[in-house]
C-alpha cells in the first residue's frame, strides 16, 4: 500500500490546497479546497466546507481513488470511487481503490468527522465527491488545453483521455501538469441523464482480493518486528483489575484497568494461552451484581409503572383522550433483549508507540476517534499520529467504539518502539460488547367502530446510548435520547393523536449502536401492535396501513408495491401465512412481507419480499446485497438473538451458544428497488427493522397468539460463562 501520508500538502492559495507528487512512478493528485458558497449550497454542504478527493493516476493509466470511509461489507469502498469516477470520466475497469487513513480532509460532511455509521456513507460524501471528481477532471482538461494552446471548452474528456480535434492525451500524460494547476471552484457536474456509472451495477472493487485471501483485515496486519498481544478481560460488567500474577518468561504483562494484556514475540495463540492462565483477581463495581437479566427485567417493569421520570419525545393531538373515547382500547407490552454484534472478525488493533510518533492499524469505523485516542494515550500531537484503516470483518456499529484501540495503544506504550497486534478471543468479543440496549415498551391504542386507529401511546423503558456517553445533557428534563425512541416517533403514518414517551433505565450494561439502532426494536413494537389493532378492528393489515399513510406517497408506493410483489391478496394453503411491516429510517422507506409455514408453536420463514425506496442508487447490486444482509441479520436476531447476564456476567461466549442463521436456513429474498428521485437515503440499515414484525405478524395468522418478546426461540442459557 502506498502511504499517502508521505505526501506533503501544499497551500496554493488562501483557501486551496493541493497535494501532488511522484509516488511509485505515479502522479498523485489531491484536492482539498473550499467550495464556493453557491456551489456549497447546491451540494448541501456548509459554506466554506472542504472537499477532498485523492486520485492517483498511474503510469498504466489506471486510476486509484481513495475511499474516505471504512469498508465493513457495505460496499462504499466501491460506491464512493464510483461517484468520483463518474465525474472524472474514467472507465470503471481502470479504477483501483485505496482505503483512507485518518485525515480531517476525509471527514464525512454529514458528521464533520471521519466516522462510518448511520447509513451515511453515500449520503454523506456523494455531493462532495462529485464536485471534487469534476474538479479533478477539469484540471486534466485545463492541462491539455495549456499543452495544446487551445481553449478548454474545445476539449473533451472521456474514458481517461482528453481530446481536442485530432489532438489527444491520456490522463497519465497530463497528470503531472494538472497537478500544478489551481483547482476550479465551480466545476461543472455531469448531468444525470448522461451518467455512465452512477445507478449501474458495476463490480465491486474489494471483491477480487476477498476471494484470494489477500484482503488485509485488522487481524491480518503484519508489521516488521511486531509482537502479539492477547487480553484477559474482566469476567463481569464493571469489574476492575485487583492483583496480577507474574508474567510468563519472555512475555510482558500490562494492566489495562479492566483487563490485562499479555505480550509475546511469538504468536497470537501463545498470547491467548498465556492470558488465559495468568492469575488475575478482580474487584466488583457496586453495580456488578445487579447487572443480571432477571433483576434488570424487574427494574424495567418498575420503571414502566412509575414512569418516573418520563421524557416525551413526541406528542400530537390528544392520544390518551382519543384512546379513552374509542370503541376498543388495547394495551400490550413488548420487549427485546440485549444483543451482541458478533462481527466475524473479533476486536483487534495494532499499534506502535515511540517517543516521537504513534502509528495505529485498525479495523475501525471511527478514524477520528482513533486519532483522539492515540493522542490521549501517548500525549503526542495529532501530526505525530498516523492511523491506517484496514478492511473490517464486519462492523455493524461495534467498531465505532474505541475500547480495543485504546487497549492496543496502552499495551504498545508499555513496549515502546515495538509494534503490537492485540487480538481479542471470540469469548472476549461476546462478553465485552457494547450491546444493543434491551427495551421494554408498553403500547396503548384505540380503534373506532370502523376499525380505524384513533390514537397511539407508547412508553419505552431502555438504557441510553447517549446517556452512557454524555450524561450532562440529560440534566434537562425535556432531553431525550433519539436512539431510544426512533422508529416510534418517526412512523410513516400520519397519526392525529400520538404520544411517545421514554423512561431511562440506568442498567449498567454497556450499550452501543447496533445496526439500525433504536429502529431495530421500536419498529418491531409499533408494527406488531399495529397488526394487533388491525385484528381488533377486523381490518386487513396492508389496507389499514394504507389508510393511515395520508400524504406519504413514497410510503404508499412502497406498501402497494410490496403487497403486489408478495402476492399479498392471493390465498395461501393451510399452515402458511404472510405478514407485513413498514418503516422509514435513515432517509429510506422499506416495506417487507414475510411468508411463513408452520403451526401455532413453530414457524419457518419461506420467503421475504422487500421493497426499498432509497431515493436513487449508486450501485443497485450493492443495495440488494445490503437488503439481503439486513434481512438475514434481522431474522437471526428475531429468532434466536440475545445476551443474558447473571450477577454481572455475560453468559453467551461463543457461536455454539449464540445462533446465527446458516445457509440452509436462508429464505429466498425478492427485492425491488424504487428510485423515487427523493434525496439519497441510507441503505446499510433500513431493511433490518421490518423483518421481525413482519415475521411475528405472519406467525400470528397461524395461531401463535401474541408473540411480544424477542427472541422467538431463545437458545439454552449457559449456567455460567
Amino acid at each position, binding site marked *: 500500500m502506498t502511504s499517502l501520508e508521505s505526501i506533503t500538502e501544499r497551500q496554493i492559495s488562501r483557501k486551496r490546497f493541493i497535494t501532488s507528487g511522484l509516488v511509485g512512478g505515479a502522479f498523485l493528485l489531491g484536492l482539498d479546497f473550499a467550495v464556493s458558497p453557491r456551489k456549497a449550497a447546491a451540494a448541501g454542504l456548509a459554506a466554506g466546507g472542504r472537499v477532498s478527493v485523492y486520485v492517483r493516476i498511474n503510469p498504466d493509466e489506471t486510476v486509484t481513488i481513495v475511499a474516505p470511509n471504512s469498508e465493513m461489507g457495505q460496499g462504499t469502498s466501491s460506491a464512493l470511487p464510483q461517484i468520483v469516477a463518474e465525474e472524472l470520466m474514467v472507465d470503471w475497469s481502470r479504477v483501483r481503490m485505496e482505503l483512507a487513513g485518518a485525515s480531517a480532509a476525509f471527514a464525512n460532511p454529514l458528521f464533520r468527522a471521519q466516522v462510518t455509521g448511520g447509513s451515511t456513507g453515500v449520503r454523506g460524501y456523494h455531493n462532495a465527491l462529485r464536485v471534487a471528481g469534476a474538479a479533478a477532471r477539469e484540471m486534466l482538461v485545463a492541462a491539455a488545453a495549456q499543452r495544446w494552446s487551445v481553449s478548454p471548452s474545445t476539449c473533451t474528456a472521456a474514458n481517461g483521455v482528453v481530446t481536442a480535434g485530432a489532438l489527444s492525451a491520456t490522463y497519465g500524460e497530463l497528470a503531472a501538469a494538472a497537478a500544478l494547476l489551481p483547482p476550479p471552484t465551480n466545476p461543472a457536474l455531469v448531468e444525470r441523464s448522461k451518467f455512465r456509472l452512477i445507478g449501474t451495477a458495476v463490480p465491486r472493487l474489494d471483491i477480487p482480493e476477498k*476471494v484470494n485471501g489477500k484482503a488485509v*483485515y485488522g487481524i491480518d496486519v503484519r508489521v516488521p518486528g511486531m509482537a502479539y498481544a492477547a487480553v484477559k478481560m474482566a469476567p463481569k460488567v464493571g469489574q476492575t483489575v485487583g492483583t496480577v500474577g507474574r508474567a510468563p518468561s519472555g512475555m510482558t504483562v500490562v494492566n489495562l484497568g479492566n483487563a490485562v494484556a499479555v505480550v509475546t514475540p511469538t*504468536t497470537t*495463540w501463545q498470547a491467548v494461552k498465556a492470558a488465559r492462565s495468568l492469575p488475575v483477581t478482580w474487584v466488583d463495581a457496586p453495580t456488578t451484581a445487579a447487572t443480571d437479566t432477571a433483576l434488570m427485567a424487574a427494574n424495567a417493569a418498575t420503571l414502566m409503572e412509575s414512569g418516573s421520570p418520563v421524557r416525551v419525545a413526541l406528542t400530537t393531538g390528544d392520544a390518551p383522550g382519543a384512546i379513552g373515547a374509542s370503541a376498543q382500547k388495547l394495551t400490550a407490552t413488548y420487549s427485546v433483549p440485549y444483543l451482541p454484534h458478533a462481527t*466475524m472478525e473479533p476486536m483487534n488493533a495494532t499499534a506502535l508507540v515511540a517517543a516521537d510518533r504513534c502509528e495505529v492499524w485498525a479495523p475501525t469505523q471511527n478514524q477520528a476517534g482513533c486519532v483522539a485516542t492515540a493522542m490521549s494515550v501517548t500525549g503526542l500531537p495529532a501530526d505525530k499520529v498516523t492511523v491506517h484503516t484496514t478492511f473490517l470483518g464486519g462492523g455493524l456499529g461495534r467498531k465505532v467504539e474505541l475500547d480495543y484501540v485504546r487497549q492496543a495503544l496502552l499495551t504498545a506504550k508499555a513496549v515502546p518502539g515495538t509494534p503490537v497486534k492485540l487480538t481479542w478471543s471470540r469469548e472476549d468479543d461476546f462478553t465485552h460488547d457494547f450491546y444493543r440496549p434491551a427495551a421494554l415498551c408498553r403500547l396503548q391504542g384505540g380503534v373506532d367502530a370502523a376499525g380505524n386507529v384513533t390514537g397511539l401511546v407508547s412508553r419505552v423503558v431502555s438504557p441510553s446510548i447517549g446517556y452512557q456517553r454524555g450524561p450532562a445533557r440529560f440534566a434537562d428534563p425535556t432531553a431525550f435520547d433519539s436512539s431510544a425512541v426512533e422508529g416510534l416517533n418517526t412512523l410513516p403514518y400520519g397519526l392525529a393523536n400520538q404520544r411517545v414517551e421514554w423512561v431511562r433505565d440506568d442498567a449498567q450494561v454497556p450499550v452501543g449502536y447496533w445496526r439500525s439502532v433504536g429502529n431495530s426494536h421500536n419498529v418491531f413494537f409499533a408494527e406488531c401492535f399495529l397488526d394487533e389493532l388491525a385484528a381488533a378492528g377486523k381490518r386487513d393489515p396492508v389496507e389499514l396501513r394504507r389508510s393511515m399513510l395520508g400524504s406519504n406517497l413514497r410510503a404508499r408506493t412502497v406498501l402497494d408495491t410490496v403487497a403486489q410483489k408478495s402476492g399479498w391478496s392471493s390465498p395461501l394453503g393451510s399452515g402458511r401465512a404472510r405478514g407485513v411491516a413498514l418503516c422509514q429510517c435513515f432517509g429510506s422507506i422499506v416495506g417487507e412481507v414475510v411468508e411463513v409455514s408452520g403451526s401455532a408453536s413453530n414457524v419457518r420463514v419461506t420467503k421475504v419480499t422487500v421493497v426499498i425506496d432509497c431515493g436513487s442508487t449508486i450501485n443497485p447490486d450493492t443495495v440488494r446485497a445490503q437488503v439481503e444482509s439486513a434481512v*438475514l441479520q434481522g431474522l437471526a436476531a428475531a429468532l434466536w438473538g440475545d445476551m443474558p447476564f447473571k450477577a454481572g456476567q455475560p453468559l453467551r461466549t461463543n457461536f455454539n451458544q449464540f445462533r446465527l442463521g446458516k*445457509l440452509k436456513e436462508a429464505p429466498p429474498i425478492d427485492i425491488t428497488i424504487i428510485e423515487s428521485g427523493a434525496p439519497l437515503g441510507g441503505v446499510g440499515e433500513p431493511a433490518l427493522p421490518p423483518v421481525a414484525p413482519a415475521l411475528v405478524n405472519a406467525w400470528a395468522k397461524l395461531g401463535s397468539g401474541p408473540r411480544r418478546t424477542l427472541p422467538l426461540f431463545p437458545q439454552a442459557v449457559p449456567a455460567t460463562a
Partner: protein
Amino acid sequence: MSENVSYTLNVNGQNHPVTADSGLPLLWVLRDVVGLTGTKYGCGITQCKACSVLVDGVLERSCDFDAKNAAGKKVVTVEGLETDPVGSRLQKAWVDEQVPQCGYCQSGMLIAATSLLKKFPRPSDENINEYMDNICACGTYNRVRKGIKRAAGVA
C-alpha cells in the same frame, strides 16, 4: 508452556520449515509463522468455519487441528485456490455473483465449496445445504448458493 517442535509444512505446494509450540493449531502456524493470513480466526472452537483448509484434500477446521499433524501432508488454503481448477472456478463465480460483503468468512466458504464440488461436482440444493455449514454474519448465503451453482454449471 509446552515444548517447541520442528517440522515441515507443505502449504499450497510450498515447503515451510516450522519451529513452534508443540500444540500450536494449524490456523496460527499459517497466520503467524508461515504468514498466510487468508485463513481466518472466528471462534476457535470449530463453529464458524472461517478457518477451513484442506489437508490432503480433506476439509478441516484449522483452529482445532494440531499443526504438527499436518506435517508430510498437503495443506491448501484460500491463497492456493487459484491453482486448483475447482477452486479457481469458484473464485471466479464468487466475483461474478458478487458474493462477499465484509468478506471475512469467504476464505472458509470458498474452501468448503471447493471440498463440496470435489465430492459432488453437480451438487443438489440438499448437498449444498448440508455441506455449507459456515457462518456468515453478513448473510451472503443466497449468493454463496448461486456462486456454487454457477461454478458447477448447474441451474
